[in-house]
């Protein structure tokens, strides 16, 4: 007898294949192309334009583009115009990021490689650029090993190490809010190293870790984690999520009223996240890597208004600053040394101090010789529902020097091997 199924019915196998295809879609990415000229000095930005880090990657790109325009207006590098080639690394597929990095260096012949927001990709690209002897500035991957055990002579980093961030805020949390902490940690390199940093501080101060749970990247529902954290009854719940994950966990923590019972805190916080939160969920103690409101810092207002022009009026975030600093660092040192030779430029970048118009922060940030980590200022403070201006959502209560927050070079595990 003929089965009574619909003529266009679909098999279970097709559904499963389809579901697999949906998974693949997460790593598919658009092709980004820009016009180029052969004699230009080229920067290759290999950064996420799709997926969970798309917004952060895009903001770094805007910072890079502003720097490129400024450099060209001032005569370029070694008298040549400068251009930016952009590739989408995706947010989670390291293989794609490396493939795009290889394309930028080998086929497009970029002089400088920039990226990546994702820590694992930053490490993988560091290995690649080292193999191909290209100067790389890591714009936004925070895990310690980029300028620690995985460091390279050709790799410099603008954003902080995770340890710098935890060191900057740990003492405040311990002294002000209590010694029993509970961690909810994203399950990848960035989260792991942040937690390790806090654990080291907690041990040093004599505090107690009541528990720690790993949440997969891209978790949407954090209620089960928050239920566990509440049951442990800590003084401080440390949330280490970034990007959209941070929005989700904070929104849910506030809905559960956990902010009324415990102190909510963490390390890195970004304006992108606070902007995406409803006002009542803008809570907690955090570290900002750069902030757009810093009274008395020279050239800051020019930068803010230049970025506003490129973002439809939005203020710059730390990500814009990273991109801007990364491109300018290469340009400044190349013009100073009058060469594009990667080894010579890497040597010159060691202890290179950013001029005020690029630094846009106090305490004269510089690239530390020995691990190639920028030593900037770190901004410890509290998220605010509303500030004096619509995008003023963070109250800076303390500015910490990078050199005070960073581990000594000897403890980073970095041993630079220069080419012979």
């Amino acid at each position, binding site marked *: 007898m003929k089965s009574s*199924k*619909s003529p266009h019915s679909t098999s279970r196998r097709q*559904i499963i294949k389809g579901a697999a295809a949906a998974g693949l879609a997460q790593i598919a990415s658009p092709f980004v192309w820009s016009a180029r000229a052969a004699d230009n000095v080229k920067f290759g930005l290999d950064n996420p334009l799709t997926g969970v880090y*798309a917004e952060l990657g895009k903001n770094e790109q805007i910072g890079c583009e502003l720097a490129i325009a400024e450099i060209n207006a001032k005569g370029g590098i070694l008298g040549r115009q400068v251009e930016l080639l952009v590739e989408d690394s995706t947010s989670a597929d390291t293989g794609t990021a490396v493939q795009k990095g290889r394309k930028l260096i080998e086929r497009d012949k970029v002089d400088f490689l920039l990226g990546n927001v994702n820590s694992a990709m930053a490490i993988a690209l560091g290995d690649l650029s080292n193999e191909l002897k290209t100067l790389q500035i890591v714009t936004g991957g925070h895990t310690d090993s980029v300028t620690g055990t995985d460091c390279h002579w050709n790799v410099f980093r603008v954003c902080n190490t995770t340890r710098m961030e935890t060191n900057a805020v740990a003492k405040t949390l311990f002294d002000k809010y209590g010694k029993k902490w509970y961690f909810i940690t994203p399950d990848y390199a960035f989260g792991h190293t942040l937690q390790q940093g806090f654990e080291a501080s907690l041990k040093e101060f004599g505090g107690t870790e009541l528990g720690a749970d790993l*949440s*997969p990247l891209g978790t949407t529902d954090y*209620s089960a984690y928050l239920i*566990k954290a509440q049951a442990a009854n800590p003084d401080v719940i440390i949330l280490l999520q970034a990007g959209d994950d941070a929005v989700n966990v904070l929104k849910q923590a506030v809905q*559960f009223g956990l902010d009324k019972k415990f102190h909510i805190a963490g390390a890195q916080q970004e304006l992108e996240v606070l902007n995406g939160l*409803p006002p009542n969920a803008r809570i907690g103690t955090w570290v900002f890597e750069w902030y757009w409101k810093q009274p008395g810092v020279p050239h800051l207002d020019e930068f803010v208004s230049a970025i506003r022009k490129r973002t439809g009026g939005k203020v710059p975030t730390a990500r814009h600053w990273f991109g801007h600093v990364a491109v300018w660092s290469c340009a400044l040192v190349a013009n100073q040394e009058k060469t594009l030779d990667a080894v010579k430029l890497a040597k010159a970048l060691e202890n290179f101090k950013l001029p005020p118009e690029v630094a846009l922060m106090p305490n004269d940030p510089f690239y530390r010789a020995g691990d190639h980590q920028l030593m900037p200022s770190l901004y410890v403070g509290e998220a605010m529902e509303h500030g004096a201006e619509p995008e003023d959502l963070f109250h800076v209560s303390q500015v910490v020097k990078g050199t005070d927050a960073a581990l000594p070079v000897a403890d980073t595990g970095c041993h630079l091997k220069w080419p012979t």
Partner: protein
Amino acid sequence: MTQLVLFNLFNGLIIGAFYALMALGLSLILNLSGVINFAHGGFLAIGGYLAYMLMPQIGFWGALAVAPILTALIGIAAERLFIRRVYGRDPLYSLLLTFGLAFMIEDGTRFIWGASTVPFAVPSYLSSSLSNEFFFLTGYRVFMVALVIAAVAALFLILGQTRLGMRIRAGTLDLETVSVLGINVRILRNVNFGLGIYLAGLAGVLAAGMLGLQPTIGSSLIMPSFVAIIVGGLGSLPGTLLGGLLIGAASGVVTVFYPSASEAVIYVMMALVLLVRPHGLLGEEGRF
């Protein structure tokens, strides 16, 4: 520990109800039209963004009522313009089409509302806990479950008691005969698609109140919904509902013991169900 497991089980059921709402829409479209709608997550996002846009004018409740209807209208238009053309062809066509549509919608929302997460606030009386002990029972979550129950009841009522529902059910079983009996199958499919997308739009407004509203909000929720359909059994709407509740509960309970596997567990569950009962828990044997 028992209390923690019970808390999580209960909480998992709340989340599961939400997955079920999304999966029911997917299932409705799949059953009648044979289309695996990958763009479902995209429509969910549209629902959320429309509500976000409407809220300053008509408030949360107004937006909750209007946004899913507008989303359904967009869905109906999409069906007429695109989806209709691939009926009767190999399912690969509809797969590819909706796959592309999902990208178009995601980039479209990014273009219109930006890549940044937008702040979507629910009324303050909904966004606090109802009791100190059961703190995870927020007004919003209870409301969400109540709404899901109401929506599911309404859907089953429509399918079971109305002429339209009868036609949809009949079409699911044998579309050709339904067509021969003089029912306009084109309109039937169009309305059915709109109904499915209405559920996606509703899920979108609810999700935006709980999660960050950004262009990828749908893609992070679509996989659990597919899993709910497969676990529950293709072709069975009660199965889809059960699948959604089960994966929500499983994910919640696993978080107590091994949190980093809280997402993986739903796929393990799917694999187990496929091994032991390939047509799903309540799926009709031999139907697919």
